[in-house]
């Protein structure tokens, strides 16, 4: 009760102090319960879906994929490549955020399908308002202004080029309550030499009387996993446009069947001249089942012979 009243008082004080500018901001902020668009001029921008030229500082949209699992393949030179298969299931632009309306440029991408009965009413309202089919997963990707796409644009797996590097974000698997060795990589304590009941313990947590406390942020045992993690510079080995599958090298966070988010790599930037910008626009008359998988180029130098 006391906390509530204190919050109330502070809020009232804030309102009182902010009252004169609030009144001067016109009635635009007070019309929160109307469904009518406020100004027609705000939605007048028309985004043209046509291929453009990618500037070095432009940022394309990312995509949503489902982690299907891992396998291993042999490349052209007989080296084994650990592979994660990602499935870009029906990616579509579900909302465009513009500087004039939201204050920034971003694209909201939807992935998968969902039935209306499985969604809550506000979610259904969002899809209805945007005029896109119901989606299983939504994610917003900040883009630069030249990389904007209209609502309803489908994102193909050819948005990415085999051989480029991407960053893959996902939610890691839950590991439960873990000790310091597994959670933080502590060395533990000796197995012998008189160590008693403390082989995997974390050891000291601080100093003596001088601070007299354990510092905040001390690495200690605790819950591990179920965190958002980004694996950077994941190499795209192969794409399959017919089935919207993506073969990437190495691991990505999350369990099988989890959603991961793929963006162009920040550090190992792909060549801007090779990437389709803002995205790949499939020709109208193509047959999706006839498309062949595209494998990354492995170069002409045998890596095994070049080592000598």
């Amino acid at each position, binding site marked *: 009760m006391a906390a509530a009243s204190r919050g109330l008082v502070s809020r009232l004080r804030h309102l009182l102090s902010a009252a004169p500018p609030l009144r001067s901001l016109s009635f635009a902020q007070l019309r929160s319960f109307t469904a009518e668009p406020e100004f027609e001029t705000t939605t007048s921008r028309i985004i043209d879906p046509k291929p453009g030229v990618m500037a070095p500082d432009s940022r394309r949209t990312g995509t949503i994929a489902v982690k299907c699992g891992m396998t291993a393949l042999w490349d052209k030179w007989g080296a084994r490549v650990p592979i994660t298969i990602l499935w870009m299931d029906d990616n579509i632009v579900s909302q465009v955020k513009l500087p004039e309306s939201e204050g920034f440029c971003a694209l909201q991408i939807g992935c998968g399908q969902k039935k209306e009965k499985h969604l809550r009413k506000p979610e259904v309202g969002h899809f209805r308002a945007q005029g896109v089919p119901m989606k299983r997963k939504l994610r917003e990707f900040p883009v630069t202004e030249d990389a904007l796409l209209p609502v309803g644009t489908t994102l193909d797996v050819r948005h990415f080029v085999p051989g480029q590097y991407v960053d893959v974000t996902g939610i890691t698997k839950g590991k439960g309550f873990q000790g310091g060795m597994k959670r933080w990589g502590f060395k533990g304590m000796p197995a012998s030499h008189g160590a008693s009941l403390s082989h995997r313990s974390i050891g000291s947590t601080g100093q003596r009387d001088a601070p007299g406390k354990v510092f905040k942020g001390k690495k200690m045992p605790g819950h591990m996993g179920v965190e958002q993690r980004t694996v950077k510079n994941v190499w795209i080995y192969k794409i399959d446009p017919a*089935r919207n599958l993506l073969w990437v090298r190495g691991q990505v966070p999350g369990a*099988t069947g989890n959603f991961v988010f793929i963006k162009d790599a920040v550090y190992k930037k792909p060549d801007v001249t090779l990437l389709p910008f803002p995205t790949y626009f499939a020709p109208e008359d193509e047959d999706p089942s006839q498309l062949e998988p595209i494998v990354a180029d492995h170069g002409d130098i045998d890596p095994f012979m070049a080592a000598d």
Partner: protein
Amino acid sequence: MQSLYGKFRLVTKQTINSLKNVELSKVASTESRYLGCSINRCSGFNSDRACASAAFLLNKEFGTKVVSPASSASCSIVSMVPSYKGLSFGNQSASASFNLPTRKFSTSGSTPENVSAASELPPRIKFKRLDKTARHIMQIIDKEAVEEVKSNREIPEIKPGYIIQLKVVVPENKRRVSVIKGIVIAMRNAGLNTTFRIRRLVGGVGIENLFPLYSPNIKEITVLDKKRVRRAKLYYLRDKMNPLRKH
């Protein structure tokens, strides 16, 4: 799904309008006959299995109402919806019944022809757990990879107890081809990652090698002899001194 129900409502409205001309008592008397007709028609129409299932769904959903003799006009109409086309009852409802199977077809998309055409993809609108779908995709991809390797190279069947000779390219060693002869003591069947374990004697010392069966570095596999064994894993050969005495 929602639009499907919307279609149902539309059909019901249209038929209500059309039935204002028809006597309601006549409809009630012939109602049971229509129901039977609809089931018959479905069996005749079962090239499109989805449509049949739609009709059965209808009958199941509204079956209780239809059976009751004092049924209202609306539920009798619903029971007749799939049977209209076969009976050529009214022209505007014929179009509605034409809409119904197509809509159902596109919703489920799980007819056998569709699945075989796009066998790699799971059915589109079906709401399954994603990890199951993902595992299914992995199985398909694994199978395809195995098929591809088998189509490119001839790989003989290998079992524990076979004495085989391998020609293996070692990329790390300047791509030299080494010939390895030994007995297969274990197989691990795991799709593309199927491996087998070969035991041989080199200079009086037993050596075991583990090879992926579908590796492109294995250039040739020849089966020299087939020993009859009664185990799947011949690890007991490790304890015997000289398993390759005869060769």
